[in-house]
């Protein structure tokens, strides 16, 4: 299966949905019934305090083997994502920009991405080696990365900011349908943040569903969410529109926590 081109007409209506997701790590529950629905064309932001389960959610969406799913479902354009291996999820058009991208010594960015693109884009959209390189150079230039990056081993000796740009470069090359940014903004200075945000927003549109996981409101000034969710203790404690960002900024997570204790979380917007 799964060499099906990402980002083309979805069979199931273009929805990425998480339903009642429960996850534990080494027997300890981290997610306690998460519900979230992202349609193509929408941008969602997920915020929450440290330890609320944000990164766990990101990893589970791609199928990290260390996380045990004990209940619920994840569907992507009608496919049961939890039944698939990480590479199959990627080939369906799900992309995770890692919080801590790993280095792969000796494997150049070009070689790595050519292998990835060949695996993900399918026959119809596969590029020849020269067309691929031309596009890679173009995308690197767009993200203000030096061309020499292309021939450097992936993430080896890269600074924090360079690694984050590399994640966005990969996203742009792989043309996914659903993107999860896992704290892509943390550790970036303002210029780098703007460049990264530009790299992402240049791809948003009716074909892309985006989930921005972040600690800080700052990135949401550059990537404007349609919906904001607040994750606390492994549950979506509150969901709302963009106005919720301001409220959160003013009142903090304790306000959400206190409100959550009084009333059960609303259904996502």
């Amino acid at each position, binding site marked *: 299966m799964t060499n099906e081109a990402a980002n083309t007409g979805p069979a199931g209506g273009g929805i990425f949905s998480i339903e009642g997701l429960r996850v534990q790590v080494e027997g300890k529950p981290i997610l306690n019934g998460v519900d979230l629905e992202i349609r193509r064309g929408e941008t969602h932001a997920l915020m929450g305090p440290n330890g609320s389960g944000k990164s766990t959610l990101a990893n589970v969406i791609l199928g990290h083997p260390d996380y045990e799913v004990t209940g619920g479902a994840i569907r992507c354009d009608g496919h049961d994502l939890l039944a698939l291996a990480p*590479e199959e999820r990627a080939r369906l058009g799900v992309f995770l920009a890692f919080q801590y991208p*790993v280095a792969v010594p000796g494997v150049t960015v070009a070689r790595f*991405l050519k292998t990835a693109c060949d695996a993900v884009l399918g026959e119809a959209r596969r590029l020849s080696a020269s067309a691929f390189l031309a596009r890679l150079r173009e995308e690197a230039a767009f993200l203000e990365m030096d061309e020499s990056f292309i021939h450097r081993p992936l993430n080896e000796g890269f600074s924090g900011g360079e690694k984050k740009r590399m994640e966005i470069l990969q996203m742009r090359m792989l043309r996914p349908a659903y993107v999860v940014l896992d704290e892509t903004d943390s550790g970036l200075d303002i210029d780098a943040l703007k460049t990264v945000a530009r790299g992402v927003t240049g791809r948003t549109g009716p074909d892309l569903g985006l989930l921005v996981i972040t600690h800080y409101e700052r990135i949401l000034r550059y990537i404007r969410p349609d919906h904001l969710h607040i994750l606390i203790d492994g549950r979506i404690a509150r969901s709302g529109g963009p106005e919720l960002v301001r409220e959160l900024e003013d009142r903090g997570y304790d306000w959400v926590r206190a409100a959550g204790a009084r009333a059960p979380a609303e259904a996502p917007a």
Partner: protein
Amino acid sequence: MKRLDTDSRLVEPYRFGFVTEVETDAFPPGLSEDVIRAISARKGEPDWLLDFRLKAFRAWQRRPEPHWALLDYPAIDYQAIRYYAAPRPRGAGGGAIDPEVERTFERLGVPIAERNALAGVAVDAVFDSVSVATTQRKLLQEHGVIFCSFSEAVREHPDLVRRWLGTVVPPTDNFFASLNSAVFSDGSFCYVPRGVRCPLELSTYFRINAAGTGQFERTLIIAEEGASVSYLEGCTAPMREEHQLHAAVVELVALDDARIKYSTVQNWYPGDAEGRGGVYNFVTKRGRCLGARSSISWTQVEVGSAITWKYPGCVLEGPDSVGEFYSVAFTNARMQADTGTKMIHLGPRTRSTIVSKGISAGASRNTYRGMVRFGPAARQARNHSQCDSLLIGDRCSANTFPVVESAVGTATIEHEATTSRISEDQLFYMRCRGIGEEEARSLIVNGFCREVFRQLPMEFAVEAVKLLEIKMEGSIG
């Protein structure tokens, strides 16, 4: 999620394990002075060469088999081995190659008929104890390059052979070198005259075929002043239940400003998952940088053999001479490799580089053993060593034994060593980009070996990457 380990059931099938049915002229098993005289007589050798053999044999008899390497294997019964086996010539003229032998080399991807010769490469094909063909001879002759079987060199260029044979690896050098010097049956000879850049890659392909037979070939390469040559060797053998012994000697000589690049892809049969069968590979390879500014570079990709015992080295005598050693050693299942290099710095300002990449999977054992020595005259000599080990699974082991000796105060030595595993995080990251687990692992391993593969001539590098990929397929359980 599959574990990163080798399951004995999944060891990759060895693709070169077929047997060629040929009529063979073979000696009965056993080793004695009479056997050595018979080999020499069969080849119509001059007396000086017989003397060389007999001296070596006597040295061998006085010596115990060495056991300092980190290798476990049952005692080798040297009387149970055949020391000579050759396919009988066929056809009307009596001199033609058996078509089965020709087909064998075709099947191995090494065409030996001139009509199919590989572009840019001259091949000497050695089948069991004899060289059966050497291609591209005409073009080489035009440049004055001699490239032929060892036996032919003894007949046609006796002065050259006599002058250099044993000057790099003396017949008394070590147990296996002595054995080889006593019984060697064929091999390749190459002479590049002064100022000539050899116009082709030279290559020898070694094939063991006959059962119960050892292969003892000898290679001698001489690059005169300002000459340069790139030489490749490849090796395979059938799958057999019993172990087969391969004890080769390679000698390289580089005079002033000469350059020799010697590359090996060793893919002898490694035995099965339980360690039955496989080639015992005990090889002595050494180069002498006799001339000023000369250089010798060894590149080896060792992916076969049940036992590998091999330390290609350089003796850097000429001032400003350069020695290099680039190695990838992959072991799987029950394979054991104890391999590395010796860099002996004698001349001033001599330089050497060592890059060793060991990959162990299954229940294999992979050892780097290296020596860097600086003699009293090696002023301002330098060495840089990088030894990295990659472990796949938790039943294998990797060891590093670097030795440095210096008799001079102005030498510079840098040594770096790392041991790592393919991490779950690396695999997950790559899988999240759509790359399947096996391909991801293979990319990681190729990345690990990149520095070494880059040293190989282009076609060989492609082959080496493919070969390692096939070998890697076995390393998932």
